[in-house]
Every structure is written in structure tokens, then in C-alpha cells.
């Protein structure tokens, strides 16, 4: 079973992500604090990290940088889910090592598809 780790400072959103992903049959872990999340992810790298950008204690971009600097976390695919829209932010996230970018408010259907793509459960065709 694929293990997905969800980081978002808003508990309602982590709950939503958990609901969506568990329906799909993934094992879901959540964190609402960046520092806590980083420690846990580094300890046991998940198959996929779903990451919010704007968080109080540790910013998502900073978390991403620290994760990519760690040998254990360098290979973890990261799906950034952020309320920031616009090419600029997407570009910045991708440059920092994110694998994909999804704008809030996102569609659960789109999220499921992105997750399947990043986990290698669906071919890239038709994008």
C-alpha cells in the first residue's frame, strides 16, 4: 500500500485530503506543522508528500529545500497544493524541487489524478 504524507496548517484541508486519498486506498499520514512534518518525513520517507506552501512555523518552500538537501528525502515526489496562483509561484516551486503544482481550491478529481501520476500508477498520456 502506497504511503502518502499530507502537510497543511489547516486541519479541515488535511482532513479533506485524507478523505479523498483514503477512498483511493492509500495509507495517509497528516501533519499541520511544518517542522513536525519535516522530522517525520525525514525519519521515514513516504511514497509521496502533499505539501502546502504558506504555513506559520516552517514555510513549504523552506521545507522543500531542506527535504531536497537530505539524501533520504531527495527522491520523494512532492505535490505542492497552494492558494498562491500564478506562473511565478508554480515556477518557483518547481525550481525548488517540487514534482507538480496544484492551485487551491483544487478539484478532488484532479488531485487523485496527479497523485496517481506521481506514484507511477497512471501513464502520463493525455496530459
Amino acid at each position: 500500500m502506497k504511503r502518502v504524507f499530507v502537510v497543511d496548517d489547516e486541519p479541515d484541508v488535511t482532513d479533506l485530503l485524507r478523505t479523498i486519498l483514503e477512498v483511493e486506498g492509500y495509507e495517509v499520514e497528516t501533519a499541520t506543522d511544518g517542522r513536525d512534518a519535516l522530522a517525520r518525513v525525514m525519519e521515514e520517507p513516504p511514497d509521496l508528500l502533499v505539501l502546502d506552501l504558506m504555513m506559520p512555523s516552517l514555510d513549504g518552500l523552506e521545507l522543500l529545500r531542506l527535504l531536497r538537501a537530505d539524501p533520504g528525502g531527495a527522491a520523494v515526489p512532492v505535490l505542492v497544493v497552494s492558494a498562491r496562483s500564478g506562473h511565478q509561484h508554480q515556477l518557483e516551486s518547481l525550481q525548488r524541487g517540487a514534482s507538480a503544482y496544484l492551485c487551491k481550491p483544487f478539484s478532488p478529481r484532479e488531485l487523485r489524478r496527479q497523485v496517481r501520476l506521481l506514484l507511477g500508477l497512471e501513464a502520463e498520456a493525455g496530459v
Partner: protein
Amino acid sequence: MAPVNATQRSGGFQAVGRRQGRLQVRIARYVAFAVVVSLAVSAVALIAGRQRSLERSLERSARTYAALASPQLADMAEVFRSSGGRLLRQRMARLLELNSDVVRLEVVDVQGRVHLRWEDGESHTFPDSETAPRVEDPVLLGALQELDISARRLSTDGGDRVYRVVAPAVEQWGRHAFSVIATFSYASADREILTSVLWSGMLLAVGLALSFLVAAILARPITRHVEELRGGARRIADGRLEERVQVSSGDEIQELAEAFNAMADTLQQTIGQLRAAYRELESLDQAKADLVANFSHELKTPLTALRGYLELLADSSLGPLSPEAARAVAVCEKNVARLTRRIEELVALSQLEKGPASDLIREAVAVEALLHGVVDTVLPRVEEKRIACSLDLAADLPAVVGSAEHLERAFLNLLDNAVKFTPDGGSIRVAAEAHEQGDRPGVLVAVSDTGVGVPVGEQLRVFDRFYQVDPSARRLYGGMGLGLSLVRSIVEAHRGTVWVESEEGQGATFFLWLPSRPPDSGTVPVVSAE
């Protein structure tokens, strides 16, 4: 904008620079003119007076000469009858030597018959009374009979001006048989006057040159002050607002310089205030943009939860729904989508009203692809309202340089606007063609609808923020009045133009022109729109 203005200003002053010294020349010219006119007037008066006096003196000496010469001549006429012509010639020559101005002497009897004439060094006698010349001039004829000396001026005698004197010769016993007509030429007097005129002319020329030079030298201090004033004005115009003009001429020019300095003080102060106000506005604007960004984040987080759960409900991931519940969920979803769109608009606007960052405007964007994309986007709503939508793109559309993301937003907003205001069963036409504006090549996009139209007086204001043609339109059509202002911000950031043509009730056509080449670009890689 600012550099362009500066160039224009300094350009204007360069033109002034070429006129350097003109004021000095002009002053010198006026002074020289005045001097020469007064000199000329006095010269003319003097010469006229001199001429008159020369003529008087000639006439006086002519009358004296005639009075003295006439008895002798009359005697000679008598003597000539008996003696030979040689003695006559000698005596005549002596008489003529007495006055160089006399050109002709005639001895005439009271009937006007000429007996003897001396002219050009030769004497002529007319013994035959039939062939002798006669005096025809009635005034002279009248004078011949008088005993008083009579004089008259005649201007026609071979072209020269002459003065004629009739002098009676009365014999000792009182017989008045002859008179003498002496003709004097003004030629020598005229020569003298001509010489005076020539001398005066030369003096005038010298006076003109001298007075011009002197006036130019004297005008120098005045024009120097004016030049100082102009130099100061130029420096201030070039943006050196702290510059002041130093003129201490103690006259109106100094007053002008002081007034100018006062103006520069005010200008400097005002510009300082404006700059401070502008900085404040900039920081406020940034604060507002930050506020909008933060606030939109705060809005989107709850919307994320709403949209996510609503979609899970709608696709029955959380269990089956009754038809009523499904309808309610669909309404919620629609409104969440609307709310999301509005927030996106607001965010985009707050970023764009400063103009999208110029480094974003760099891709070569294929307009036709963008237009196909946005038409596809609005297609569901177009079909829902049974609107006939046509897309009419010219084959040779050049790519425009810009930000595909922003241009797509602009086209979408125009099309959204058209769909919103076109009634059910209406039509929308989207056209694009290559079009030059001024000398700049570009693409003209036209979006026409059959909606309510825009009244003429409102056609500029539709692009203002939060503007609605009719306040009630907000309830009827929705939206915040941000869409078109966003279009304008985007287009202006691309150095394009946007305008609307419409007659109220006849629909409206929105035109959007974008340059296909930036003013200073090399080659731009073509990036097709997604």
C-alpha cells in the same frame, strides 16, 4: 514617460541655444536704425537748405549781373551795326568771363525779336528781321516791355535747370530799345548738391556701422543677464531643481530672475511633495497588494475545504445523495466556483494594476491558439444561452510578444463580458487580423456581441475599476466591474490599446490591439499557448 519629456524639453532649449546672441543683434539693429533715420532726416534738411541757399545766391548774382551787363550789351548791339563782329566778340567774351554760370546772353527788342545771341562761345547776329528768332514765352514778352528787371525760372533748356533774367537797357535820353535776356544754369549748384548727397550717403553708411557696433557693445550687459536667466531656466528644465538664477542687474531682468527663482522654489517644493506622496502611494499600493494576497489566501483555504467536500458529495464518494440533495450540492458547487473566480480576478487585478512585471512580457504568443482556447472555455455557457458564436481569424496573424497567461486572461474577460451581456439566442463574433497602429505592426482582436451595448458617454469609463454601466446591472449580470479594468491593465502593460464601439441597444464591439514586436527586441522564441 519621463525620459521622453526630458528629451523634448532639452530639444526645445537646443533650439533656443541656436538663437544665441539674437537679442543683442536685434537691439543693435534697432539702435542703428534709429541713429541712421535721425542722421538721414538732418542730412536731407541740411542739403535742402543748402540747395535753396545756393539757388538764391545764383539768382541774386544773376540779377545783379544782368542789370550791370545789359547797358553794355545794348550798346554793343548798337555798335555792332557799324563796327565789325571782332570787337563785339572780345567784349562779349569779357562779359561772359565775369560769371561762370551764365550760359547764354540775348539782346532782344521790345517786340521780342532777337538781334544778338551769345551761346557756347559763339555769337550769332540776326540782321534780317524776317528770319530772326523771336521770344515766344508770353511772360518773357511781357517782361520785355517793362523797365523793371524781371526774372523767371525755367526748367526746360536742353535738360538743365536754368534761370532767366530780363534786364531793360535804357539809353541816356530815355529810349528803351533793347532788353537783355541772360540765361543762367544751375548745373554748378546741382553738382555741389550731388556731392553733398554722396558725402552724406557715405557718412550714413559709416554711421550705421558705427552705431550698430556701439549698440551691440552697449547691449551686451543686458543680453548677458538674459542669457544667464535662460541658462538657469534650462538647468531647471533639465531636472536640476535646486539650481537658481543669479542675476544682479538691478532692473526688470533681475526682477524676472527673482520671480523665476520663486517659481523654481515652488516647483521644487511641489515636486518634493508629489514625490513624497507618490512614495506613500506606492507603499500603500504594496500594502494593498499584500493585503489582497493574504486575504485571498484566507478566503481560498475555506473554499478548498468547501469545494473538495462538495465534489466528494457530488460524485457520491461519501455515499449516495437524494436528487434534491444532489441539486443543492450542484448549486453550492456553482457558487463556490463563482466565488473562486472573483477572488482570482481580484488577485490578478491587484498584481496587474501596477502593470504585470515587464519581465513576464517576453514570449511570442500565438493569438489564434489563445482565442480558440478561451472560446472553448466559455462554450458551455454559450450553449446554455443558445448564443451563436463565430470565430473569424485571419490566416497571417503575427505572434504578439507578451505573457500568454495574462493575455489569455484578457481575452477570457472580454469574452466573459460578451457572454454575460448577450441575451439568450443572441450572437457573438470573435475576429482577429493583422493591423498596424501608427507604424507599429500588431494584431487587432474584435469581440462583438448583440447585448445591451454601451452608451457613448460611458465608453471610456467601462474600463474603470468597479464600473458598471447601470448600477442595477450588478444584480442582473453579476460581477464586480473588475473584468474590463483588468483587460485594460493587461493590454496597457503590453503597450497595446483597448476601446469599445457601441450604440446603445445595438450591441458592442470591444477592440483590443497588441503590438506584434516590442520596440527593442531581437528574436523571441515562439512558445505556443497551452
